[in-house]
């Protein structure tokens, strides 16, 4: 869901860059040097995971996973995603360079929102409830990202309105799949490494 260079208007680019810079600064501030390896390794893991393509019908979609990134990293999602998108742009020509700010904002802000919105839900003592919150986070972050992409396009020119709406509709299957995938990832992590999601191991498992 990256936007390429050249499509967006200057004010949109500028707003994206400024907000991303602020988000990254906050993320870096909240992350001390001891957590560098953790964020770096997770950023690498998400970079890899975003290359997973799942089939739907004759086509296929690739996962974005920003809901899960948010749940795992909180504000550190901003620097982690900026780096992932930067590497993709300069080495694979995927996404653009000047739009890096907008692209990062569109993916990282929903991640942070999911972190605040679903953090408590996935810690629920009932696995079912946790899975539902995981699904909400997974699907919700894609909905938000798609909306933000649509808004960035529409603000850049009325000619984009139809394309923006089409993007949203085309991503409905992605929302469903991301919901399922995020829910089962959350279920697994809760069982295998509860501390990762802020659960207290002693309390849950004695």
């Amino acid at each position, binding site marked *: 869901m990256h936007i390429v260079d050249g499509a967006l208007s200057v004010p949109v680019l500028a707003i994206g860059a400024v907000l991303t810079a602020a988000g990254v600064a906050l993320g870096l501030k909240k992350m001390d040097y001891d957590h560098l390896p953790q964020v770096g390794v997770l950023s690498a893991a998400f970079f890899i995971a975003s290359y997973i393509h799942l089939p739907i019908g004759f086509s296929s979609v690739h996962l974005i996973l920003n809901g899960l990134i948010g749940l795992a990293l909180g504000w550190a999602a901003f620097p982690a995603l900026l780096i992932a998108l930067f590497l993709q742009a300069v080495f694979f020509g995927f996404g653009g360079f000047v739009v890096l700010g907008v692209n990062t904002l569109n993916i990282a802000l929903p991640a942070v929102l999911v972190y605040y919105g679903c953090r408590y839900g996935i810690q629920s003592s009932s696995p079912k409830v946790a899975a539902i919150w995981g699904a909400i986070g997974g699907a919700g972050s894609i909905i938000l990202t798609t909306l933000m992409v649509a808004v960035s396009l529409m603000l850049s020119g009325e000619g984009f309105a139809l394309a923006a709406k089409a993007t949203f509709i085309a991503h409905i299957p992605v929302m469903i799949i991301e919901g399922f995938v995020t829910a089962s990832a959350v*279920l*697994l992590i809760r*069982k*295998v*490494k509860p501390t990762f999601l802020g659960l207290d191991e002693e309390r849950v498992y004695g």
Partner: protein
Amino acid sequence: MSSDESFFKVTGLSYRYPRRGVVLDQVDFELKRGERVALTGPNGAGKTTFLHLLVGLKKPKTGQIWAFGKTRNDEKEFVEVRARAGFLFQDPDDQLFCPTVLEDVAFGPLNLGKSRTEALQIAKDTLTSLGMAGFEERITHQLSGGEKRMITLAAVLAMEPDVLLLDEPSNALDVKARQRLIDTLLSLPQAMVIVSHDADFVDQLSTRELRLENAALMVI
């Protein structure tokens, strides 16, 4: 080209990696019913690569792979091969990705089209037959090395394969777990290919030994 008695028959198999160069050069190989073939060779000789080629996880540059009664070329044809040749990976951690033991063992049968209840029943039975009953609800990630190895073996056996391909199964196992693995493998009827650096392990198990070195397969 074949007989009823052989599971795999490979001729003129070659493979190369972009930067590493040729790792397999015109290799021939056959695996017959009841055989336990040991495959040895230095680090980086290409043993793991060879096993991957057998089940189509990599595509050979040249050569023919004949398996379970048919020549196999494309991905679709290899899906059946993978269902009938159980592959035990070098590192059990690569293979265990479900949260609980039962789900992991049932994963294979589910892929073979079994229903959920059937798959769970098969998984339970397999665990029992390996003496691992009671592990169903354990969390895979927290098992010891030896336990992980036995669970991955159960996961592979649950697919009721005709052949086992074992990549360094005794790595990082302690003495007891290693002996238990040897005993289990000796009691299984399947034909096997066993990759290992552990000379004693190979001696106890194999009926025949091959060595992979300088891209060629030699009889020892």
